[in-house]
C-alpha cells in the first residue's frame, strides 16, 4: 500500500515525445489505490486537521465541540480507573493527628504527620506542618529546616491490596514540589519484602527532581517488577535542609505512562480511606474529663470492669490503641485487653468501691 504523500509516477507537462496511454493508467491506478487505502484504513493518515464543520455518519468516533467538550455515546473503557490515585491523602488535607498545627519531627523516631504520611529526619529535628496551598490547591505539607539537618524523608506506604495489580506495569508518579533552599528533591520507590511488612524493602527505582522556590509539578514513570506485589513505598527526600522550607503537595501514583491531573476525591471519601489506617476520638467533658471511651457505675473494690468501643471504619489490621489521656475516679489505670479490626475492649480495676468512673481519649493505628 502507498503511504502519504502520494507520488505520481509519470508527468506529462513539457513532454516533447509521444507518451504511452498506459502511463496515464498507471497514474490513475496510483491515485485510486491510495484513495481506496485511505477509505479502508490501510493507508495511514498521520495528521488530519479539520477546520469547522462536523464529522457525521461515522460510528465509534467521539465528538469534540468548540469548547473542547467531548461527547461519546458509549462508555469509556480506560486502561486505569477513575479512582486512579493509589496515594491516600495526596492533597494533605486530612490531618487527624495535628489538625493543622505544627509538629516536631525528631531524629529519634519517625512519626506520622498528615494522614498516611510518615516523616523522619537525621542530623537535627525539623518542624512539619500542613500549610495553605495556592490556586486551586487548598493545602500542602511543608517542612522547615534547621541547622545541622542532614536529611528529611516523607514517605507513604501503599498496602498490598491497593497496589498488587500494578506489578509488572508502568506507573506514573506526580508531585508538586518547591524548596526555598535546595535545588533537588530525591524520590525512591521500593516494595515490601513480604506482604505489607516494610521493615525491609527492595528498591525498584530512584531519581531526582530539580526544583526551585516556585511550586512546580513534576512526574516520572517507573516500570514495576513483576515481584512488586507486596505493597509499595514512595519516599521523597531532601538532604541538608539547614534552613528554608520544603513544600510537597498533590502527590499521585497511578497506572500508566501519562501524568493525568491530580484526582480530587470527595473529602468524606478521603477521610474514610484514611480511617482504614488511623482513627482517634478526643472527646472530653470538662477539665480532665476524657470520655471518648467511658465507663461509669457502682463498683466493688478490686473487681474488674470493662466495655467495648467499635471503630468508625474497619481497620487494615488489628490496630495499636493508644490511651492519650485518662480520667479515673475509683479506678486503677485502664488497659486495652483485646483489639480487632472493628473494635477494642478496655478494662480497669476498681480501687475504692462505690460510684466510680473511668474514661480516656484514644487513637487506633493500623498504619503500615
Amino acid at each position, binding site marked *: 500500500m502507498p503511504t502519504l504523500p502520494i507520488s505520481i509516477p509519470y508527468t506529462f507537462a513539457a513532454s516533447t515525445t509521444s507518451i504511452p496511454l498506459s502511463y496515464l493508467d498507471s497514474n490513475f491506478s496510483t491515485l485510486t489505490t491510495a484513495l481506496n487505502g485511505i477509505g479502508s484504513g490501510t493507508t495511514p493518515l498521520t495528521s488530519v486537521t479539520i477546520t469547522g464543520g462536523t464529522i457525521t455518519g461515522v460510528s465509534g468516533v467521539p465528538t469534540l465541540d468548540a469548547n473542547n467538550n467531548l461527547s461519546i455515546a458509549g462508555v469509556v473503557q480506560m486502561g486505569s480507573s477513575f479512582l486512579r490515585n493509589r496515594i491516600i491523602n495526596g492533597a494533605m488535607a486530612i490531618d487527624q493527628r495535628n489538625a493543622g498545627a505544627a509538629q516536631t519531627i525528631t531524629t529519634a*523516631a519517625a512519626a506520622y504527620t498528615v494522614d498516611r504520611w510518615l516523616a523522619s529526619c537525621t542530623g537535627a529535628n525539623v518542624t512539619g506542618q500542613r500549610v495553605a496551598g495556592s490556586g486551586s490547591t487548598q493545602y500542602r505539607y511543608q517542612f522547615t529546616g534547621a541547622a545541622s539537618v542532614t536529611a528529611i524523608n516523607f514517605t507513604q506506604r501503599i498496602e498490598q491490596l491497593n497496589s498488587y495489580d500494578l506489578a509488572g506495569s508502568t506507573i506514573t508518579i506526580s508531585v508538586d514540589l518547591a524548596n526555598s533552599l535546595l535545588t533537588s528533591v530525591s524520590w525512591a520507590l521500593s516494595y515490601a519484602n513480604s506482604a505489607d511488612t516494610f521493615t525491609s524493602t527492595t528498591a525498584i527505582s530512584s531519581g531526582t527532581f530539580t526544583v526551585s522556590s516556585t511550586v512546580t509539578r513534576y512526574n516520572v514513570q517507573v516500570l514495576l517488577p513483576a515481584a512488586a506485589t507486596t505493597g509499595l513505598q514512595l519516599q521523597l527526600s531532601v538532604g541538608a535542609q539547614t534552613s528554608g522550607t520544603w513544600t510537597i503537595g498533590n502527590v499521585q501514583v497511578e497506572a500508566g505512562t501519562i501524568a493525568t491531573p491530580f484526582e480530587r476525591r470527595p473529602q468524606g471519601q478521603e477521610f474514610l480511606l484514611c480511617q482504614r489506617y488511623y482513627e482517634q476520638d478526643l472527646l472530653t467533658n470538662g477539665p480532665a474529663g476524657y470520655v471518648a471511651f467511658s465507663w461509669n457505675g457502682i463498683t466493688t473494690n478490686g473487681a474488674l470492669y470493662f466495655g467495648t468501643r467499635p471503630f468508625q471504619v474497619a481497620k487494615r489490621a488489628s490496630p495499636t490503641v493508644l*490511651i492519650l489521656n485518662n480520667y479515673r475516679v475509683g479506678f486503677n489505670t485502664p488497659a486495652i485487653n483485646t*483489639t480487632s479490626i472493628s473494635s477494642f475492649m478496655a478494662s480497669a480495676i476498681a480501687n475504692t468501691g462505690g460510684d466510680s468512673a473511668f474514661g480516656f481519649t484514644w487513637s487506633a493505628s493500623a498504619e503500615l
Partner: protein
Amino acid sequence: MPQYTNAKYVSGIFGQEPSTIQVDINGVLSFVPMADDNTDYQNIMILVAEGKLVIAPADGT
C-alpha cells in the same frame, strides 16, 4: 522505628492468655495486639529478637 519501652503482656479480662502487649510508644501508653499484620507488633518482635526489648509477664502471672 518508634521507641518502644516498658513492655508487658496484658491478660484477657477473663484470665485468658494475653493477646495484647502494653508498651510505651514514644512515651505514650499503648496497647499492641499480638497480630502479625500489626506494624508495631512486627517492630516489637524485631527488638525482642535482637535482645533490645524484654516483654514482662502480665500482672498476676
